[in-house]
């Protein structure tokens, strides 16, 4: 049969020498390697008791930020959802009612905000699209579960606690940090 390429080799089955036939040198060589590894530093760690140090910009589980007064920053503009290549984000907007100014920063807020963690590819485009600095990816790992439904994270799992803030300052670009220092910009003020 004619070969498609010229790279085929003829395989030769060589006759083994005496030392190869008794196999002992090969077995001893293998044991030596195994013994060497017993005294080496371990490559694995005992997760979850021990956790590896993460890069600050690791893209893990999302957080929905609150502002310094504890109001939710997200205004349900839908830009994260439209930027999401995996279409993992869905939301329903609602109008803020009077008296809720402490809860929601803007006139409109996300009544429902869901991220399907099975769909999410952790690309970080949502965080890049967000005009309100509301969504950030963090260095937390999304835990495993037994049911698929548990991976649809609602606001209960995504919004940070008022007294349990998630620090994302390392993820903010310097230009954003400078922008936030300008007090008379509407972005940096609470709306009524």
């Amino acid at each position, binding site marked *: 049969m004619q070969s498609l390429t010229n790279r085929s080799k003829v395989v030769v089955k060589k006759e083994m020498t005496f030392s190869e036939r008794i196999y002992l040198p090969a077995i001893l060589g293998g044991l030596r390697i195994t013994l060497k590894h017993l005294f080496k530093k371990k490559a694995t760690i005992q997760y979850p008791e021990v956790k590896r140090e993460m890069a600050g910009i690791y893209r893990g589980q999302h957080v929905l930020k609150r502002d310094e007064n504890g109001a939710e920053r997200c205004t349900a503009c839908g*830009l994260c959802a*439209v930027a999401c290549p995996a279409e993992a984000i869905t939301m329903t907007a609602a109008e803020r009612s009077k008296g809720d100014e402490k809860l929601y920063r*803007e006139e409109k807020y996300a009544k429902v905000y869901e991220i399907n963690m099975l769909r999410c590819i952790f690309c970080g485009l949502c965080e890049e699209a967000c*005009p*309100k600095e509301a969504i950030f990816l963090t260095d937390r790992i999304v835990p495993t579960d037994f049911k698929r439904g548990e991976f649809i994270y609602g606001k209960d799992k995504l919004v940070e606690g008022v007294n349990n803030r998630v620090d994302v300052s390392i993820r903010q670009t310097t230009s954003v940090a400078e922008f936030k220092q300008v007090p008379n910009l509407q972005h940096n003020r609470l709306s009524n």
Partner: protein
Amino acid sequence: MPKVTIDGQMIEVPDGTTILQAARMIGGPIVPPAMCYYSSLKTSGGYCRTCIVKVSKGSEKDPRPMPKPVASCRTTVMDGMEVQNITSPEVVEARKGVVEFLLLNHPLDCPICDQAGECHLQDLAYEHGLSKTRYEFERRTFEKIDIGEKIKLHMTRCILCYRCVKVADQVTNKRVHGVMNRGDVAEISTYIQHAVDNDFSGNMIDVCPVGALTDRTFRFQSRIWNVNPMDAHRDCKTCSGKVTLWMKGNDVARVSARKDKYGEVIDWICNDCRFEKKDAHDWQMDGPTNIERHSVISQNHYSLKEPAHKPLLNTLYTAPADRQLNSNN
């Protein structure tokens, strides 16, 4: 029949045609943007100055150029006139300045605003504007007002184009709102929150180039790119009944009038069609609305936007002026 040359393209137009209309007859990228001019509303235009062009040759008889950029929506063409729009760096620079002026008091609340995605000011700012403002003072703010049950007025977002006032004057039979005060404190207002409830008052929402007048029945319901526009019609006694339905799944999220490629309403629709008929069974579907491919509205929609039966060759090879007429029917 005067002949006019706009950015090197000559066209013969009827007497009394404005430069903007002549440019629209040619079509393409040389058409100046317009925020206040509305072809179907008489005496509209002349407020916003976004359509300014340079007249480099006044006419055949008097070839002197006009000293300053002119508003193309209000300047009629003369025989032999030569106009520069995008080919003149002066005009592009001046228009950039106009956009900056329009944005002086305009709030940066696009993430909240229902108009975002179909907002002419947003498009204009994106195309010409600066990414930073040089304005250092407080922006003017107003309280939000409900004018009637169905319309919300965000005066803060208004650019005072007067289109809604002209709709109320020319399309409805009684105007109950207008522009109060002057200059920086001018605002659209009614007689002490008088409800605007005329049969055709809802068209104010469609003519508003920004998000100052929005549909209360659609308020915060959905972003515009998450709803699917479908052309539909019904037999209506008061209006033509030809509308665009903005569908969310099988539900009608919003009803609006059909618009041409300049974002202008083709047929006015009545409030009954706009606000009351929110059931898909009220309507006969005509097929998906044609949305420009690069518009954010066609984001995440996988269906074929161009109707498959439309003869593509005809659309490609019709004269530009005819094409404009075709797109209106």
